[in-house]
């Protein structure tokens, strides 16, 4: 029995001797694998970082122009509503495209197929049957043509072509 045990021990020792080289090799392989994995991870990180960096730049670049264009539009365009008594629908015009009253009145005549006539301080379009009026910044309806063009265009918020009979109408009509 002692001999058997000794033999077993010897066999085990022998096995151990055989096993050591194998284990050592496995450990080395694992290290290599881990190195490879870490390399791959680094590559992934690089690609991810690069991918993440480019989109924000593009987004920011895209984000700014609309603001500028909208500002430019606001500065260079001045659309106001135009309504006419009896007309079924409203129109909109850009006051910036006209330089003076005659141009504006001509455009309104073409738009609504009516004859407004010329401005007169005394009668103010009386006789033509139509009275062009505008709502200013204070919300008051004023007759078109009393003030200089620049003053009118900067304070006009809305236009309305009233019929001659409606112009002197009472406040209750509004």
């Amino acid at each position, binding site marked *: 029995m002692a001999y058997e045990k000794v033999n077993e021990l010897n066999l085990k020792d022998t096995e151990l001797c055989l096993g050591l080289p194998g284990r050592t090799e496995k450990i080395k392989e694992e290290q290599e694998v881990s190195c490879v994995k870490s390399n791959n991870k680094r590559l992934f990180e690089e690609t991810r*970082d*690069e991918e993440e960096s*480019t989109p924000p*730049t593009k987004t920011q670049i895209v984000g700014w122009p609309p603001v500028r264009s909208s*500002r430019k539009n606001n500065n260079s365009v001045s659309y106001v509503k135009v309504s006419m008594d009896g007309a079924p629908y409203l129109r909109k015009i850009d006051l910036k495209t006209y330089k003076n009253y005659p141009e504006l009145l001509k455009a309104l005549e073409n738009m609504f197929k009516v004859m407004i006539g010329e401005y007169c301080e005394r009668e103010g379009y009386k006789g033509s049957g139509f009275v062009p009026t505008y709502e200013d910044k204070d919300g008051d309806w*004023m007759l078109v043509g*009393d*003030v200089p063009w620049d*003053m009118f265009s900067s304070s006009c918020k809305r236009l309305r072509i009233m019929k001659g009979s409606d112009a002197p109408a009472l406040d209750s009509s509004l």
Partner: protein
Amino acid sequence: MYCSDPPHPLHLVASDKQQKDHKLILSWKKPTMDSDPLGVFPNSPKYHPYYSQTTEFGGVIDLGLSLRTIQHEIYHSSGQRYCSNEGYRRKWGYVKVTMDGLVVGRKVCVLDHGSYSTLAHQLEDMFGMQSVSGLRLFQMESEFCLVYRDEEGLWRNAGDVPWNEFIESVERLRITRRNDAVLPF
């Protein structure tokens, strides 16, 4: 010499071309700029993105400057509009004129007149057709009277103060009937 040269071409390349391959090359070259490549090698991939982000942040700053430029423009335009409106008021002397019962108001330039009588004539032309007998402002037998709102927002009877004082304080005119005028506003 060798250390200072690389940054410029790299930056130029980054600004000129936006291809990933070039960025990869940049990332590989940057470690060489450092003194200890072996030690920094594991960290260089992480450092590179930060550096590029910093560059992008610089770009963001430029965009911010653009935004400030826009804000400045807006502020300037707003100020200009306000000044221009005020300039019109002071320069032209236009005030609104409304008549009780009428929807549409008119505007007159008080600086074009030298007295109450000429103003009354203009208002007669503008609103006289609303009454059979005309307005006949400033006359005893007239049923209409002219009131104005002064710079303090108070409604006063036109004609009480000298013309020069009137044109300096008048902000708005109103043609009302005498009976209504008696009522307090």
